[in-house]
């Protein structure tokens, strides 16, 4: 059975300044043991998507659609059931680990907390498990008695990962786990995530704005733009042969060192990211699209299958896709 399935998920923030449709009809699926990367620029709704998976959105957000976690709809669960699902079935690694850890409680306590809450371990057993988890992420066990501020950014991110692993969930959602980190630390954390996923067969949803990072970590990629998935498919295909102009722009933003084509030729996308409160009509990307057609401004473009779709499905929401495939 599919581990996670989103069906037409939409999230709207109701704020005094007007409604902000942050996620607008996203459908995605994830099998157990698979890693899915979600890319997109700032404000495209990636974090909103992640938070909605465990119903952690603030009160002013209204959610529609379905979030099936192991076939069960998270959105309609009772609070009790939801609490049981949280962390035990799916856990989160947040964007900024320095804020996601409680600054005044010991690291060990924080890692052990979900164990205790879900009745998985207490006392000495929990302590043993904490030590084990810390070792797993490459931290010495005595760090359990330390406080978050005593750790560097990378170490804190590792603590977050240890915490996410605590209840052996089947799904981990990692929201920009490496963004704030230095190159070398980022490499450390990414390789840690990769090895853990491989070892435990956990499903991973990883969010980033750096397509290249995702491509090297995930099996499949979904590119979001203005609250929508505009392209999804196997990593390599999307990264190296993206069909949506936005995916291509993202892929080109980070050049390959040594590639003479990009030497002294930075490439990027003109125009500004859209304001989710005032999205353009039609394809929301069309004002920045180098290959837009007149029709793009008029009607929205749905996801279309790329290629024959026999193997891993690859879809993109661009008018040019259908032309090509025809």
């Amino acid at each position, binding site marked *: 059975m599919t581990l996670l399935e989103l069906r037409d998920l939409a999230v709207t923030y109701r704020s005094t300044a007007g409604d902000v449709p942050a996620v607008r009809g996203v459908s995605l699926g994830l099998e157990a043991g698979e890693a899915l990367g979600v890319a997109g620029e700032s404000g495209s709704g990636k974090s909103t998507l992640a938070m909605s998976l465990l119903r952690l959105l603030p009160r002013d957000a209204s959610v529609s659609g379905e979030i099936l976690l192991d076939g069960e709809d998270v959105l309609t669960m009772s609070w009790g059931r939801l609490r049981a699902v949280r962390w035990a079935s799916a856990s989160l690694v947040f964007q900024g680990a320095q804020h996601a850890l409680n600054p005044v409680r010991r690291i060990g306590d924080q890692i052990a907390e979900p164990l205790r809450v879900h009745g998985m371990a207490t006392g000495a057993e929990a302590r043993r498990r904490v030590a084990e988890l810390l070792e797993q992420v490459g931290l010495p066990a005595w760090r359990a008695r330390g406080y978050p501020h005593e750790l560097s950014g990378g170490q804190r991110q590792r603590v977050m990962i240890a915490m996410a692993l605590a209840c052996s969930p089947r799904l981990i959602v990692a929201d920009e786990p490496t963004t704030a980190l*230095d190159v070398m630390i980022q490499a450390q954390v990414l390789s840690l995530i990769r090895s853990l996923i491989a070892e435990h067969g956990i499903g991973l949803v990883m969010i980033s704005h750096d397509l290249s990072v995702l491509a090297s970590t995930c099996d499949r990629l979904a590119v979001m733009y203005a609250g929508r998935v505009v392209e999804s498919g196997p990593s390599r295909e999307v990264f190296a042969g993206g069909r949506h102009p936005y995916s291509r722009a993202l892929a080109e933003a980070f050049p390959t060192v040594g590639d003479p084509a990009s030497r002294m030729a930075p490439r990027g*996308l003109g125009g500004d990211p859209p304001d989710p409160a005032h999205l353009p009509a039609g394809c929301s990307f069309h004002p920045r699209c180098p290959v837009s057609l007149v029709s793009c401004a008029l009607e929205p473009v749905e996801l279309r299958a790329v290629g024959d779709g026999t193997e891993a499905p690859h879809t993109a929401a661009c008018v040019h896709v259908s032309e090509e495939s025809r």
Partner: protein
Amino acid sequence: MTLLEARDVRVEFASRGRRARAVDGVNLAVGEGEIVALVGESGCGKTTLARTLLGLERPTSGSVRYGGVPLAYSSRALRAHRREVQLVLQDPTGSLNPRHTVYEAVAEGPRIHRLPGEGALVAEALSRAGLRPPERFFDRHPHELSGGQRQRVVIAGALALEPRVLVADEPVASLDASVRGEILALLLRLRAELGLSALVVTHDLGLAWNIADRVAVMYLGRIVESGPVERILTSPSHPYTRALLSVLPESPSPVVLGGEPPDPTRIPAGCRFHPRCQVLASGAAAEAGVDGLCASGELPVLPSSAEAQVACHHASASARREARTETEAERL
């Protein structure tokens, strides 16, 4: 010709009762019309060096020279220096006072320096920075702009003083991937149009590849390798540069250095990189017979030369056995 130059600059801070040698002997020159990238991991002293070049930080020893003349630290001299050398910071949102309009933000420099024709200067700077027509932006507040536009405003603010050198500290790190290229292209264009030199501080080797002529790799307050981009980024000699290159996402065999960013209050003896050096760890250094030297032999401070140069015992040893080094570098 060298425009802006750091000569044997050292900057120390008192940090928790210790001395942090944030910049520990750096020679670096930016030539006219040249774009130099300064790369290194977090905390290695890049920002400190950049600030020192602007006179925002006073070196503990060594000197900053502009056009060959050492910088004086009287407020008059500093002000004059800052007409020639300008700074662009990492975070465009933070770099703009939220209460000032675009016009005020760009006009701030001319006002401080009491330049005549403020309006024209502002308009020109904005259009050079790619915000056209400039009048449309005059009255906007930063929060009404996108990230890329904000960074353009910051750059325009620097351009309004008509500087010769731009020091950009991680100019695109906080920008969206899609906007990044545009800003970098702008820097290239400014060099082409105005002959502007730039020192770009970054931890992103891709950026250096994108726009820089020369790259200097910094580690723990020192430049450990420098030279033309093509040379350094395709055939690095220093193990640290190699490691940095290897962890780029597409790279086939990443060499992930262990441990945390080094601490400038405890600089190791010998080669400052040796505790983390993969060459030393793999035994290659011992093979070359330099392992003892790595741990205790001080390395000289690299001069500010345009040539490719490296501060590494192993690399120097290898250089002596030229032929073999060549093949090894290629294999890597």
